[in-house]
């Protein structure tokens, strides 16, 4: 994204006065969620402040936790270390993967839809850090239960901030365990959203090259 575009986006969000992820009037985080679900064809999105937060959410969303084993395409050393920290073992590369992983940068951001189409796991981890605004990621899924569990991991509450952190449990199977603050800043979300939108824009033709 051009410096001018980033400045425009940052100015727009700052002028709105809303930079807080827990602000009811925030529009940037829901906007990025909508864009990601539209581009990937998944029905639900969880936005997070890092790739590792997204991996954690993808696994916790499926009830995979300490002492459990998963199938994954061979993870890199950093991911292996993180999975070990979670207490999750990778025992098989043959079964259905627990999550698929896509890392976006300016060179491939226009191919998100195409890359997502090839993903088959229940959760799709999209690392948005390479777009240049800081650590950022998302989990995309069609599983509402996975989404609900992942949301609980990233925010302190059985539901969400719309209920002001009420911890009363309506669904006994959606039990909160450890909880992190994996929330993404609306400012970062706005920049990521603009970068993804521009990546999808068809290349403009100039008069000089038209025949």
């Amino acid at each position, binding site marked *: 994204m051009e410096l001018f575009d980033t400045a425009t986006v*940052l100015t727009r969000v700052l002028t709105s006065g809303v930079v807080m992820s827990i602000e009811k009037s925030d529009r940037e985080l829901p906007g990025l969620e909508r864009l990601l679900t539209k581009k990937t064809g998944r029905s639900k999105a969880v936005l997070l402040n890092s790739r590792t937060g997204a991996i954690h959410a993808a696994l916790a969303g499926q*009830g995979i936790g300490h*002492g459990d084993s998963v199938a994954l395409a061979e993870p890199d050393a950093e991911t292996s*270390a993180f999975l070990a920290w979670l207490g999750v073992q990778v025992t098989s590369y043959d079964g259905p993967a627990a999550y698929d992983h896509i890392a976006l940068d300016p060179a491939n951001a226009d191919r998100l839809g195409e890359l997502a189409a090839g993903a088959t796991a229940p959760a799709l981890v999209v690392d948005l850090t390479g777009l240049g605004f800081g650590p950022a990621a998302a989990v995309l899924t069609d599983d509402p239960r996975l989404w609900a569990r992942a949301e609980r991991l990233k925010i302190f509450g059985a539901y969400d901030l719309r209920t002001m952190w009420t911890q009363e449990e309506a669904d006994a199977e959606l*039990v909160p365990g*450890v909880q992190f603050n994996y929330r993404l800043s609306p400012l970062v979300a706005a920049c990521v959203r603009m970068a993804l939108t521009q990546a999808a824009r068809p290349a403009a033709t100039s008069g000089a090259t038209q025949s």
Partner: protein
Amino acid sequence: MITDFPNSPLPLPNPADLDDELAALGGGEIIPKAMRRTLFPVITKEDVFNLMLAQRQAPEKVVADFAEAYRAYVGAGYALPTASGTSSLHMALVGAGVRPGDEVIVPAFTFIATAQAVVAAHAIPVFVDVDPVTYCMDPAAAAAAITERTRALMPVHVHGLPADVPALRALADRHGIALVEDASHAHSAKIGDRVAGSFGDAAGQSLMADKNFPLGGEGGIAFFAEEESYERAVSYLARHGIDYGMSWVAAAFGSSQLKRLPYYDEIRARNAALLGEALDGTGLFTPPHVPDGHVHAYNMYRITLRPEDVGLGDLPVYAVKEAVHELLVAEGVPAREWQNTPIPCHLPFRNRDGFGNGYPFSLNPGAVRDHRPEDFPVTLGMLDSTLVLCRELRSPVEYERILRYADAFRKVARRPDAIRKLVEDRDYVRPYEKAARLG
């Protein structure tokens, strides 16, 4: 453009408003509905320019410059910028030497992140009651909870008032354990000349946009007294492949806000003093206690009720509080409970699933307790008898607003008859008997 000047400034209070009927009973409101919204954080043109300038720099430099500027302001030895307050607390614990299965003593009254950060460090939170005057960790309760597996005390400077650091420091030293501050509410809070975040072996602090010192969205910072602790935290992140990195966008906003933090501090202190003076004159309300030598940051302002001083001593204090809450909200004062149940009684610490299958609680079953609210009588007593103002002291130039809040408290305190009638008409229950709430 959002500035620190409100679009619709409140008029100065009219003394005649105090003689009006209570708003809940059909009278005029001290703060009309259309003028109740407060904006936070304050975002100025300079913030916008500073963010634009920051995007022309290397992201790593923007984050490092922010961390160094704030470290110097706090006076801590070393600083590690992170993505959130929770991650900063996690790193503070790791840096202080907390290891899997260790016990960390935390207060039963705090935000849940304090205890969840202990779990994130694969350790066990051991909950103790708070002091009845400061509402921070009670050193005597902490002393009674120390075992051979205790690795750290983790007091919270709750609402912005520094905990009893001298007593807790002495206790930690006596047992050879670490003192780790949760300074998430306590930006610029002080004991003497020292700033919260620099008292302990390590500290964590939230910098999310709702705090007195806000970043552009989410953020946190861990402080360390010794280089060895800092290095331990940094190598932990690398060894475990954890990304707790702070966004340059958030950091740039923080650098810009840091320049105005002393101004914000002065305004909050002024507002707290104005409100405190008014509350002291009501009989019913008492402002927060600030021990000598302490500077309260007033991230929140917890007001204690004394029903006995206005002839309501025969009523349950929680019922008086609920009635007063209703009456204040009707006047336009956004008073809140902010917590109604001790943290150990919230689901994550009743279920203790942790990272899954009970880890890390399974590492040290001897430290695990099935708590009931009654195990923390001081916390319960505080929840029964107090109300909180959150952002309401933080709107920097709204002098008129704080005067009107003061008038609303005066107006309600004048009407014990209305409070008594509400208590008789309603079916109030104790706070912890309702669904557990954090906010």
